[in-house]
């Protein structure tokens, strides 16, 4: 019996210990650092101040934040538009190849995202595939480089994050009860009406989960704007990175990081509420 208690204690205690040290403590440290003062010699001086927040209520940072939200929201929308018809079709197809088709979505999801971003350079650069294709179609008359533009960043984000949108939507469509759709049809609903009033609400948890899983990483991303945007589109991610590693203003970086965390918690809270309203548990996320 003692042995039993021991196992329980070890498993719960070990987990709690790890989470406290490596999840809770670091976040508290960031919060603390955001209220301290910048110091040339030791990076951070233990003097309370709001300088960190002063730096981020600056128009420059607000512009960066706005731009990040715009790019992340745009990418999320693009992902949703591309993923929904795809995931819906895939989930409702009656074929024995379905597991294989789903696996083909997983492969890019698991491939190094840096390498995938890099692979896009071949498509986007001048004389790249996209430019050549447009030239061939006669839409442009000389090679155009898409590198270092906002379009490139949108394409890059959508490309890297698309599987995060497909998988949750797929699993919510898969759970859809066919009888409900038939019932709607029997009651005289048109295809559009069935979709609008039955399919869409029932797959909403998948849509919301997918949007969160795309929006949050998109917000903090720094290597896609660095590589494809040429550093012209400064995002919150780049801002935080620069504050920590280039300008060495840790309180400002920490404050920006706190803002990002707050935004995440707000979104998660919204997700939790909507999931509760839809009668689903938030346990065991869409992975």
């Amino acid at each position: 019996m003692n042995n039993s208690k021991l196992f329980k204690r070890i498993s719960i205690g070990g987990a709690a210990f790890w989470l406290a040290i490596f999840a809770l403590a670091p976040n508290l440290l960031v919060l603390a650092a955001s209220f301290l003062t910048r110091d040339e010699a030791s990076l951070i001086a233990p003097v309370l101040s709001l300088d960190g927040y002063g730096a981020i209520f600056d128009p420059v940072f607000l512009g960066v934040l706005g731009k990040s939200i715009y790019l992340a929201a745009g990418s999320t929308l693009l992902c949703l538009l591309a993923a929904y018809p795809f995931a819906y079709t895939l989930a409702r197809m009656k074929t024995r190849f379905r597991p294989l088709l789903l696996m083909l979505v997983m492969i890019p999801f698991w491939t190094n995202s840096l390498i995938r971003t890099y692979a896009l350079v071949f498509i986007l650069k001048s004389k790249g595939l996209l430019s050549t294709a447009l030239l061939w179609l006669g839409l442009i008359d000389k090679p155009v480089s898409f590198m270092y533009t906002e379009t490139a960043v949108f394409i890059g984000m959508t490309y890297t994050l698309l599987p995060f949108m497909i998988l949750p939507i797929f699993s919510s469509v898969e759970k859809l009860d066919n009888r409900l759709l038939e019932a709607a049809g029997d009651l005289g609903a048109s295809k559009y009406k069935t979709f609008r009033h039955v399919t869409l609400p029932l797959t909403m948890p998948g849509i919301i989960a997918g949007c969160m899983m795309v929006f949050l990483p998109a917000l903090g991303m720094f290597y896609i704007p660095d590589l494809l945007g040429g550093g012209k589109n400064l995002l919150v991610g780049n801002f935080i990175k620069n504050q920590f590693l280039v300008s060495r203003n840790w309180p400002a970086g920490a404050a920006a990081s706190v803002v990002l965390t707050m935004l995440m918690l707000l979104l998660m809270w919204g997700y939790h509420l909507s999931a509760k309203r839809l009668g689903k548990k938030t346990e065991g996320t869409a992975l």
Partner: protein
Amino acid sequence: MRVLWNTARLLPVYVFLYLPLAVLITFSFNSSKYSTAWKGFTWQWYTKLAANSQLVEAALNSLTIATLAASIASGLGVLLAVALFRYRFKGRDMMQASLFVVMMSPDIVMGVSLLLLFVAVGMSPGFWPLLTAHVTFCIPFVTATVYSRLKGFDPHLIEAAEDLGAGEFRTFRHVILPMIMPAVLAGWLLSFTLSMDDVIISFFVTGPDFEILPLRIFAMVKMGVKPDVNALSAIMVGITVCCVFVSHLLMRKRK
């Protein structure tokens, strides 16, 4: 007709997902150095890659970190999943919520916060901070995978084991562990690939003495397209394809 319609809706996404990778792999065999046009087939970038000791070392470092991180995260993640599944204790909801938060935290926030932790305790950036960081972001994924498999099982099996006099540890060892093994392996592979994939968190916690592959690639790509990077990327895509196939086979046993 229906098949055509379905294909028309599926194909563009697959083309979008795979075209860049296909182009990348093709160009890794292109003998032109500036890789704008096809100049014939060559293996030279692969041999050049093998001779690039900096890259090979970074790759070995990455493999070491990924293997260790995946193994430790699997161990801790399984304990956590079993604890959450079996016991009702104070702070259980908190624990679940914090796992979810760790999973959803933007990488950059996690990178920065771990950097502060390591600075606060006086750890210099390098191998150990990198390993602990990777373990930390892998754990929630293992726990989620294992937990969802545990939920799919008949709870009577565990009750039966207990009725027959097995203690907690023996139940875990002889009943639960064999049941969840495929999920554990899938979680391990997921962690392994997550660890190999991570750029942002590693960027903050590793130092100049310990370089890993994604960061080395990042540095190289920033300086311009290099054919041996194409070769390296092609190899990594190949490894991923193998990992996904294996984990898929493991998870299929579920049904």
